[in-house]
């Protein structure tokens, strides 16, 4: 019991973000004429997937006390790559997917190498590599287009039930547990859970992964303790690249094409930082986690969902004005990050403000 309270008090940021998401999404779903239905879930999760992945990608370097301004460009890079590779025979599709993921991880690894062996600040390394990744994306796809396997697109952006209809999993008709259970779950949510459970959680529980937290908390102490700093940092950027690759791949699958969209890429990078902060990860490193960022990204997305459902004729009608959406997004971001400022006014020892 005491342990539980201790654990909860150590993850207030995450809990706040979760609460915010529940409130926002409840408002949205209640106002939406088709709220709380599978269709809406599917649509929302499709729109959130890439941002969630990019935010998780941002989290890992941030945990080490670094930052990755190239998460958006890495996503765009994989997006363009996927539009060239993920089509054709099943073998080609699978290979294409693997190559895409490997490319993202490689891009992250390159970031890590420059940060670790070049000893240059991550913010400036990734600013520069981001430009390089965007350049490569433009080479791969000078104009929007390309092709993604249609069936793959269809099944990964819908409820599980479409797996059955598309690939004929149950030729004799789907059993009840599938049709009324798993079958109604959106595939992107299942993918998300799979990535969190099979990529993030294992990574967090390795010595290398925990080393990322240790480095972000106190790099000198981590080194003195005999941790392999280089390995943890390389792993952090590589895993970040892998997450970004998931995002880019999904974006390609969702849109059925590739696009070296530079403004979009920058927007994703900036939003990922916001999501990381809202999700309770400290920008100074050492505490937080990718699950928090997942929720942080959901909060950001819920905000923009909400704008769609306000009744234009109602008392809140002015909120439905699409021209107002950018300013509300900004204000909400500022408010969210300023919540932590309450601490500043409770601080009794002013010196603790500077750490």
């Amino acid at each position, binding site marked *: 019991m*005491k*342990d539980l309270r*201790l*654990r909860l008090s*150590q993850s207030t940021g995450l809990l706040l973000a979760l609460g915010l998401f529940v409130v926002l999404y409840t408002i949205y779903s209640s106002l939406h004429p088709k709220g709380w239905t599978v269709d809406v879930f599917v649509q929302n999760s499709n729109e959130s997937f890439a941002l969630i992945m990019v935010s998780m990608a941002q989290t890992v370097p941030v945990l080490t006390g670094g930052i990755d301004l190239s998460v958006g460009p890495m996503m765009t890079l994989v997006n363009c790559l996927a539009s060239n590779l993920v089509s054709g025979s099943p073998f080609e599709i699978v290979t294409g997917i693997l190559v895409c993921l490997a490319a993202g991880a490689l891009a992250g690894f390159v970031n890590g190498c420059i940060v670790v062996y070049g000893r240059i600040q991550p913010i400036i390394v990734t600013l520069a590599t981001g430009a390089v990744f965007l350049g490569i994306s433009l080479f791969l796809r000078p104009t929007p287009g390309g092709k993604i396997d249609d069936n793959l697109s269809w099944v990964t952006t819908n409820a599980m039930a479409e797996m059955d209809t598309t690939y004929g999993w149950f030729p004799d008709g789907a059993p009840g547990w599938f049709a009324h259970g798993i079958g109604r779950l959106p595939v992107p949510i299942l993918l998300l859970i799979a990535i969190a459970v099979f990529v993030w959680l*294992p990574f967090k*529980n*390795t*010595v290398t992964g*925990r*080393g990322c*937290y*240790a480095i*972000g*908390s*106190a790099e*000198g*102490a*981590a*080194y*003195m*303790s*005999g*941790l*392999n700093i280089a390995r943890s940092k390389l792993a952090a950027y590589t895993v970040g690249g892998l997450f970004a690759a998931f995002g880019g791949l999904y974006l390609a699958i969702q849109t059925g094409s590739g696009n070296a969209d530079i403004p979009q890429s920058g927007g994703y990078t900036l939003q990922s930082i916001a999501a990381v902060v809202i999700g309770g990860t*400290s920008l100074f*490193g*050492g*505490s937080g986690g990718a699950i928090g960022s997942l929720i942080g990204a959901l909060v950001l997305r819920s905000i923009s969902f909400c704008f769609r459902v306000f009744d234009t004729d109602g008392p809140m009608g002015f909120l439905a004005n699409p021209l107002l959406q950018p300013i509300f997004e900004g204000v909400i971001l500022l408010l969210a990050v300023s919540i932590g400022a309450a601490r500043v006014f409770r*601080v*009794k*020892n*002013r*010196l603790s403000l500077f750490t």
Partner: protein
Amino acid sequence: MTDTMKPLIALSGVSKRYGGVRALSNVDFACGHGSIHAVLGENGAGKSTLIKIISGVVQPDEGRITLENRDVTFPTPQAANAAGVVCIFQELSLMPELSVSDNISITAPPRRLGLIDRRAQRRRAEELLARVGCEDINPLMLVKHLPLSRRQMVEIAKALGRSPKLLILDEATSALTAADVERVYGILHGLRAGGLSMLYISHRMHEIEELADTCSVFRNGQHIDTFPKGARSDEQIVQMMIGRELHNVYPPKPVRNAPPPVALEARGIGWEGRLSDISFRIGQGEVVGLGGLDGQGQRELLLALFGVLRGVAGEVAVNGQKTHITSPAQAKRAAGVGIALIPEDRKTEGLMLPMGVGDNISMAALPSMTRHFVVDRDIEDKKIAEMVAKLKIKFGKLSDPVATLSGGNQQKVVIAKWLLTGARVILLNDPTRGIDVGTKQEIYQLLRDLADAGTAILFYSTDYDELIGCCDRVLILYGGRIARELTGPDITEANIIASSLNLSFPASSGAHA
């Protein structure tokens, strides 16, 4: 070598240079099995380089190291750990945002299926904490939520968890409370009985007397002598360390007939339950000590007077003028007199390490050197030069980063910075911690000179000896209150210890070596 036992670890002909500076030259050194081996020396004598070489943080330029008669090289701390050499560094090597159990098993946690087994890890932490007598620490707590003294105990538990053959303690007890120190002594004695060897670095002579069985003295990167405990007197050891005669350890205190005019008066200072109802006066020209066990509110009291803490109850008057200070900027100008604080940690609170020596010295007094919004460089240079001469600060160029100076000279820069403001009330938070004997002497003399010139000084020290030697009066804090005020001949070790433990009678002298 007086040691007849086969040494556990031996260095022969080890040298290390940093740029043009010779940190260690041709050192032969050995540490036996099952002994506590104290390493003594001034700052810059080469002790920390020795430790860093043995623990794999830096590599020697020449020479060899043998561990249990086998040649070894430690390219990294991991390699040293793997060979059984574990170091507890002066700067804590804990990760504040991680839990206690994560910290204890940071490199080699118990694993299941390749992943960290959190439950087993927690049990392990509980066992190790129990070994150092800290069962009260919940392993799930984050290290940053623990007080400094508890952190140091976690540090020791962490080191023990690596099953060391050689344990290096670099000022490992500097932040411990007296009760913990006793406990640590007990643990270390137990470990020695179990055959573990320890290298013990400390500036506190009485700790060495209590713990060590062998002592080695270093000076200027050379190994001067190694001898069994008790073979040399304190005077001889100090002599070996500094290589020159010490006449007066402490400057003489003036004799006063009437109380001096009050410079600083505090009435009923309270803060957050950590300080309560603290009232005292400091006269012009008085050196008032602040003593007691660590963590009894001394640091908080200094910060409260300096305007760093928020929500402080009570009143402060400077030169009879009631003041309300809410920031160091105001403290600097308080009542036209000025209060200065020499902070606890010079590296993070006192200095801008990458900036030049000169820039650091003039930092607090820049407004007084400014004409029409422009810093007058002639005045600035003159004032800096005065301070450098007055405090005998040693450095290469004024523009050299202050980080390149030795600890003692860095502390002098911090003091110089405040002397330039002409502050008439100076608060000092343990200014001699981690500083070599020679510089300590200079600081004692400086404080007395300042006092003689009319400055009021409030001086917190963790070293009883300093309080006795330097102070006209001593306030002993206990639980955030003034437990006792000692004056003149009453300032004795017995009285200080007794009142630190909040005992009303003087303990029989010699209760604590």
